[in-house]
């Protein structure tokens, strides 16, 4: 077991290293010229050279990479090109937003998806099963932003115009901490209130995928001989499903969750854009218009590391569920 953990840990570190190199290299594949943009059109070559020097862009590659990593490990991811705000501070402000969206949605979709998948599998071909299947299929084929737009349209726009403003328009409201001076709301319920639509948007689509997936996995496991033996022994169906079948059926679901973590990060970008929440994704998008590479690369690096760490945890959970993996 220890060996398993160590191997996974080292692999994770290697991946983080490679990701950092890849993200770092993006700075240099960019055909743009930052110094020139910053200096303006009328700048002299000396000014440009000065800016280059200040930004450290005139040193050899591996040197710059070394600086980059050194600073990153000390919590400094550079400053954005235009307003000189530290990237770390941008991330610190934006991260809670993205995390709120992501975690809430993840919990919601797991409960919805896995739950309905199990229900479907336990009563195959029943009305419940067929209805769930059709619903799942439709939502599964809907891209997040289409669903989000429609939800916004119906649940926000139409309802509000009709006088029932159950759902807020947009914007994120923090649970803890100081709110925006322009928007003094904060606290648990406002936080949830603003997050319901984003959560539902993000969760429904993925839940649909998980419904199908869990159903398939459960069906396969329930047809195994050892389940048949358990039933023949007279064990109640409930115990058969929850104590015996679920464990094996869930392992592929857990694997899938690990894979989906990276996709989750992407889904939050869309949700943030749709609902006007200033999370990590939203910040990256606005940074693109300015070609503000430090922000983009910094966010990418942090999120990638997060995905690797999360995958590591998922692997551990998988090892707990499936002892065979530990013999690695």
């Amino acid at each position: 077991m220890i060996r398993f953990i160590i191997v996974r840990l080292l692999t994770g570190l290697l991946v983080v290293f490679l990701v950092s190199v890849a993200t770092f290299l993006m700075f240099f594949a960019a055909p743009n010229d930052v110094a020139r943009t910053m200096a303006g059109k009328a700048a002299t070559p000396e000014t440009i050279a000065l800016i280059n020097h200040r930004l450290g862009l005139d040193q050899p590659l591996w040197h710059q990479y070394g600086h980059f990593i050194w600073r990153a490990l000390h919590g400094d991811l550079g400053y954005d090109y235009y307003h000189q705000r530290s990237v770390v501070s941008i991330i610190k402000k934006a991260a809670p937003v993205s995390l709120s969206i992501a975690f809430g949605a993840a919990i919601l979709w797991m409960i919805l998806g896995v739950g309905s998948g199990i229900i479907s599998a336990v009563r195959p071909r029943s009305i419940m099963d067929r209805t769930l299947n059709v619903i799942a299929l439709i939502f599964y084929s809907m891209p997040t932003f289409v669903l989000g737009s429609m939800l916004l349209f119906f649940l926000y726009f139409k309802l509000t115009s009709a006088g029932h403003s159950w759902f807020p328009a947009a914007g994120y409201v923090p649970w803890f901490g100081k709110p925006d001076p322009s928007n003094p709301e904060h606290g648990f319920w406002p936080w949830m209130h603003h997050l319901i639509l984003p959560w539902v948007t993000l969760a429904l689509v993925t839940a649909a995928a998980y419904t199908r997936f869990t159903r398939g996995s459960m069906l396969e496991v329930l047809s195994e001989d050892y389940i048949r033996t358990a039933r023949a022994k007279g064990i109640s169906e409930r115990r058969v499903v929850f104590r015996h079948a679920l464990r094996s059926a869930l392992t592929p679901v857990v694997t899938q969750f690990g894979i989906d973590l990276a996709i989750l990060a992407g889904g939050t970008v869309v949700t943030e854009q749709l609902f006007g929440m200033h999370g990590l994704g939203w910040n990256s998008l606005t940074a693109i218009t300015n070609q503000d590479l430090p922000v983009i690369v910094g966010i990418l690096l942090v999120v990638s590391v997060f995905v690797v760490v999360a995958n590591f945890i998922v692997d551990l959970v998988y090892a707990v569920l499936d002892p065979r993996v530990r013999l690695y």
Partner: protein
Amino acid sequence: MSATPATAPPTAPTTTVVARGPWALAWRRFRKDKVALIAAAVMAVIILVAIFAPVINSILGQDPNYQDQVNGLDMNGLPLGPSGSHWLGTDALGRDVLARLVYGARISIGIGILSTGIAVAVGVVLGLLAGYFRGIVDVVIARLLDVVLALPVVLAAVALVAVFGQSPVVTVLVLAFFSWATMARIVRGQVISLREREFIEAARSLGASSTRIMFVELLPNLVMPIIIYFSLLVPVNIVTNAVLAFLGLGIPVPTADWGGMISDAEAGGLYQQAWWLVFFPGGVLVLTTLAFNLLGDGIRDALDPRIERLLRK
């Protein structure tokens, strides 16, 4: 001695038993699946629309880029809903929505299929190499896979577009970049288990070269997962392309792309006045994805009817 009979005794009718290969059997199963057939028909229509987009548009008498100042906008310069001259309404610049949808089909489907094709080709080759040769080749490719799969797709796409700019080529390559990894992983896994089978040993004992073993022996055993994955991946790439367009990272304006159309509609809350600008592109997108998904399900069931048997119990 008896006289020879006037007629020969009647022979029993001979029944020929025809052997059907696995593909023929799969095709028969597919033909019985009504849902899959409908999905295939819908898909065929969409693909035909995509291919013949300019022809269709000229038949309809509309141009996706033409800004109809006369009939396209109302007095306040806002788009009009479905009407006689513009069946599905117009967008913010007075362009006909239907024409843009038709043309958008070309782009969305084209990019979806092209990027999937590239991803599958690259993924299969690298998966074969990694799985068959193992050793250092496998280590390198496996690490590469880990890195690509760890990158959050949309964020990395944001970064890549920031670096390389917006263009159809970049979009196709970015989409392919994120999809080859899962194919490679699947192929690699299959190859690792296949290479221990006796028929591979037999091939080696006959003196087959590694290339021959990979492409003549292993590849036919991979065709099924390849087809299944391809059918899964095309809708994913179509959707991802739409997402990129929605975020403003896709093909630059004014090209009509379904995701881009929705993005334009979101700007400034325009959709609140003009619901058709979100519903029609959104609806078409969902319909296409749904058709592909159902077709993919049908293909999978036809090729591997295990689940069907499970359900019949």
